[in-house]
């Protein structure tokens, strides 16, 4: 593999992440191993060792220091990259807020896994969604190619002076991190043409320079502007929606791969029933849609690509269709004690208020801790939704309908 020409490599999702960091020419990578992310750092370490990637690869003693290192390095105006998973993400939680609160354009990939105890290292988005309100942009990558491409797009987005916020890109532990697929790796020149180098004189709002010392992270008293700075971050992350679309359109033009926007819809135009989910299962569900369509059932699906900012307007535009009779929103994460049990299905209440009240709404949870979700399981969720809409109850299903939420394949006697 050379840097001069485009090649298609058969690589794992984690290797795709490492390639994203290499092609983005990240200056600083801080590393601490944690399953299932570890091979991202191992691959970058090999790139650095063989001289194929010029970066400061800093081995630290914990994930807290991984993200603290990102804060310090990014403040100098460097392009910064790291990766983590599950418990590691939780351990760095404090510094996660230091990155966003300092408005630093760090990009971090998350190979998502279940949270212990009991130990679990397989796909489950409860880790990344626990960072829901951290001020980071949160994106899900549903294919290996999307993991690589998203890193390039995320730097473009994060470093935009109108944004200056960090980005998380989440994908499934093992289901994506350790499986291999073909990934198109463009030449270094093509990426350089798309993603310009960082500004020579640092970020517009903050740069560490020994010649001009500054104090950052000062105390703001209650009557000072603490509240205003918080509101500005909220406004910026919402304001990023059109910029995300610009970045995607620009990428499409340059590389020919279209990531649609904050959401991607599939066969929704005349659909009566729509399933909404995130991640790779949002790709797989297209097969379930095709099968049910061939049986004459008018179904469609929506894959949420960006969870922060929450794509409310885009969802309302599609779900406001007059054909629609029912929506099922499925989480691969658990939000204990929330209205529905799932992160995304709980947030949907805000969207439902803008949709006709005649719609049947079914929140659902599937695949926690890496439990298999087959195309057949996905079809059963559609059928349960149709059942609930037509009969007002869910009959003869392998799933459990408890307190208004459908728990897919929950074992009950």
């Amino acid at each position, binding site marked *: 593999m050379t840097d001069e020409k485009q090649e298609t490599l058969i690589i794992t999702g984690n290797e795709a992440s490492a390639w994203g960091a290499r092609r983005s020419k990240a200056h600083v990578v801080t590393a601490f191993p944690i399953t299932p992310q570890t091979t991202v750092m191992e691959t970058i370490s090999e790139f650095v060792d063989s001289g194929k990637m010029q970066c400061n690869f800093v081995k630290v003693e914990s994930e807290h220091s991984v993200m603290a290192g990102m804060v310090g390095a990014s403040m100098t105006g460097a392009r910064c990259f790291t990766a983590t998973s599950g418990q590691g993400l939780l351990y760095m939680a404090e510094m996660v807020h230091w990155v966003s*609160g300092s408005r630093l354009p760090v990009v971090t990939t998350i190979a998502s896994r279940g949270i212990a105890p009991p130990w679990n290292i397989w796909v489950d988005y409860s880790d990344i969604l626990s960072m829901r309100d951290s001020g980071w942009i949160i994106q899900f990558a549903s294919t290996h190619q999307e993991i690589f491409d998203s890193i390039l797009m995320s730097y473009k987005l994060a470093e935009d002076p109108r944004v200056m916020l960090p980005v998380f890109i989440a994908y499934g532990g093992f289901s994506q991190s350790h499986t291999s697929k073909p990934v198109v790796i463009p030449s270094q020149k093509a990426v350089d043409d798309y993603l310009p180098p960082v500004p020579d004189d640092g970020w517009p*709002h*903050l740069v560490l320079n020994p010649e*001009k*010392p*500054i104090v*950052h992270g*000062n105390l703001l008293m209650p009557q000072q502007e603490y509240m205003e700075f918080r509101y*500005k971050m909220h406004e910026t992350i919402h304001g990023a929606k059109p910029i995300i679309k610009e970045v995607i359109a620009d990428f499409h033009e340059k590389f020919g791969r279209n990531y649609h926007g904050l959401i991607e819809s599939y066969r929704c135009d005349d659909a009566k029933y729509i399933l909404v989910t995130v991640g790779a299962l949002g790709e797989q569900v297209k097969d379930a849609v095709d099968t049910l369509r061939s049986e004459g059932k008018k179904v469609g699906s929506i894959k949420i690509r960006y969870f922060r900012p929450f794509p409310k307007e885009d969802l309302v535009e599609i779900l406001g269709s007059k054909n629609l009779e029912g929506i099922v929103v499925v989480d691969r994460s658990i939000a204990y004690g929330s209205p529905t049990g799932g992160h995304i299905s709980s947030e949907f209440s805000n969207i439902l208020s803008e949709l006709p009240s005649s719609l049947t709404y079914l929140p659902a949870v599937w695949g926690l801790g890496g439990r298999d979700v087959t195309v057949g399981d996905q079809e059963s969720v559609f059928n349960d939704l149709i059942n609930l809409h037509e009969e007002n109850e869910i009959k003869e299903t392998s799933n459990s309908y408890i307190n208004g939420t459908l728990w897919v394949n929950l074992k009950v006697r």
Partner: protein
Amino acid sequence: MNKSKKQDLKKEDLPSFEDYRDLPHIPVSIGVKGSMGNTGEWRTFRPVINLSACNKCGFCYIYCPEGTIKFDKETGPMVDYIYCKGCGVCARECPKDAITMRRETEQVCENDEDD
């Protein structure tokens, strides 16, 4: 070393923001002394240096987390009480036990206090 006076930042010298939209992305302050305010007001205990016990090693100056000790090889250390927060690190680290922490309400006679 210059004996620096308290830098009185006047309110009208500071940028003020009527509208949140005029704010930068984050608050930073330029490197002025006392950008956190007169932190000496936070103090409950004050470090008092007994210069006759002091060997001028400079440990207190190195360890002070606030940079509020001035040090001169000839005359020794001197605490800037406008900013010293009274944490006691200097007293703990002094190898000669030349620094004692005294309650602010206690009347102390300090031969080296000149601020």
